[in-house]
């Protein structure tokens, strides 16, 4: 029998890893909901966010948890530009075309970043590194707790934005019925830019959290988390934010369990094994409807 402490440890680290997936998957869900596009390059925004945070932190020494705001703002801008220049011209030409375009974006962002920052693995030290909070049999790193709280706060803000503000409601309307939204006078193209920007900002937040937790990063770090985030939204149901949260946590925990019980090389493979097994039995995903 496995020690209960180890199980708790796996659970805790899984939830922490899940936070990053949740932020990525929620962003993708928002973009998919409003624009119905498949952006495989979403992980590159996580990578850019990570580098922006690391650079500002190394130059200025500002608390990295404050820089998260700057990184998110910067990525709203970058996201808006990418949406306007790349995705809008091919809107409605098919999912595969969007994926092919994402491959171009992946080439550009990964190697553009490698030109600016070099392609070696890097890491930064959080100011709270080494501080741990005792919790039952475990010592929980303070950084991980802050990350969980921050993720919850960001999601809560997003929820309030979508439910309570006018723009949020317009966005949800566009996501439910694009033509209908147009008919009642919503500027759907503005909603596209906004949703893409916010989705990118969420990816940037994930990137910041990745960096401050002390994990290593390089320009090619983003592609696999992004595809996993897609796997999560397929499992959790396209367009469903609660589904993304549950799926993200599940993936984080499953990965850590696989890394512990099967060995580290299985960390990435296990996510795709789960995806394939689920799709064999439910071709539309766990909670998915036939939809898009």
């Amino acid at each position, binding site marked *: 029998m496995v020690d209960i402490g180890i199980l708790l440890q796996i659970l805790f680290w899984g939830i922490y890893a899940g936070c990053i997936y949740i932020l990525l998957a929620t962003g993708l869900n928002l973009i998919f909901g409003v624009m119905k596009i498949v952006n495989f390059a979403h992980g590159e925004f996580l990578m850019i966010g990570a580098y922006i945070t690391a650079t500002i932190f190394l130059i200025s020494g500002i608390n990295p948890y404050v820089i998260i705001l700057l990184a998110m703002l910067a990525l709203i801008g970058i996201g808006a530009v990418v949406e306007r220049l790349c995705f809008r011209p091919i809107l409605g030409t098919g999912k595969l075309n969007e994926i092919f375009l994402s491959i171009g974006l992946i*080439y550009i962002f990964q190697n553009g970043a490698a030109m600016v920052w070099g392609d070696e693995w890097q890491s930064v030290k959080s100011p709270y590194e080494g501080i741990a909070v005792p919790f039952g049999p475990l010592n929980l790193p303070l950084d991980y707790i802050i990350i969980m709280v921050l993720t919850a706060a960001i999601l809560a803000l997003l929820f309030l934005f979508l439910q309570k503000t006018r723009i949020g409601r317009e966005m949800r309307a566009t996501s439910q019925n694009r033509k209908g939204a147009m008919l009642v006078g919503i500027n759907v193209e503005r909603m596209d830019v906004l949703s893409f920007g916010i989705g990118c900002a969420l990816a940037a937040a994930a990137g910041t959290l990745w960096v401050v937790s002390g994990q290593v990063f390089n320009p090619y770090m983003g592609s696999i988390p992004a595809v996993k985030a897609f796997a999560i939204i397929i499992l959790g149901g396209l367009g469903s934010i609660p589904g993304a949260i549950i799926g993200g946590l599940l993936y984080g925990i499953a990965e850590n369990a696989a890394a512990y019980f099967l060995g580290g090389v299985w960390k990435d493979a296990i996510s795709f094994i789960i995806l394939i097994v689920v799709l064999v039995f439910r071709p539309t995903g766990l909670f998915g409807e036939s939809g898009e």
Partner: protein
Amino acid sequence: MNITRDQGTKIITILTVAVAIVAPFLSDNLYLLNLLSLMLICIIFASAWNLLAYSGQGSLGHAAFFGIGAYASTLIATASGITPYITIFFGAGVAALIGILIGLTCVRLKEWFLAMVTFGFAIIVQTLTVSILAPMTGGWDGISSPRLLSPSIPGYQFIEYYSILLITIATIIVIWYIMRSRLGLAFSAIRENELEARASGIDPVRYRLAAFGMSAYIAGVAGALQIHHIGYITPEIYSVDLSFWPVTYVIFGGLGTLAGPIVGTIALTIIWDGLKMAGITFARYVIVGILLILVIIFLPKGLVSLPDRLKEWWEGRNDASPPEAGRR
């Protein structure tokens, strides 16, 4: 002089083959010969991906079949001592078999779910190669693979080049034949409208599986050829990069056309290695990425449609009529 479309295609085909045959004699640079051999292999690989796309399925994990073919052929050749010229086709058979198995899980999925599954499949295969199968495959270190021809044979590079050229031409003829047979018609029917295809008696699941198997087989041939040409194989063969290249080549050249993968591969190889000679490293990916996006937006049918587009533009200009609104 008036040349019909058909004649034009014929002339270009004959010219291309002629250039491919005399190319090794134009320079005694072995680096260039090696580059040409690898380019031919990329053409086979890209054509394999294109055949799958022709049936409306997009794979982002074709490196899996490329790699399985390479590993299987290497292991068979090492264990049995049979010449790689024969084991290539057995290795590709293994790739096709596994392709059909993974196809079974995929054929009922939506087009972009399939892209995800194939992407993940390449990662799963890589993980298996370095964990459970490591005693056979050498893990991350890889294993050496029998060369197509022993380097002790004088001029072996030339013989290798011509055998690769022969296999490339054979592959393209086979794909051409498939595309214009009933099978190919069924593929495009499914791609264009699955419901109507079903109504006219085509079983989409069966035909999709067939496309999957054939595409995996050809990709396996390409992988085995490359590895026997290089003489060494590592699990890097399953990398994301290698899965993306055939996509880039085909989109660049023209999706769903026979000439697309060939034109795309040649054009991109020239750009890629030209930039390398100019000493550009990371930036060439950026340049290729920008070109890819420009082609997708402004030339959705790829480079092969460029002559027609230019002709249209030229005639439109002569007529002085207002230009047609580009895309709807």
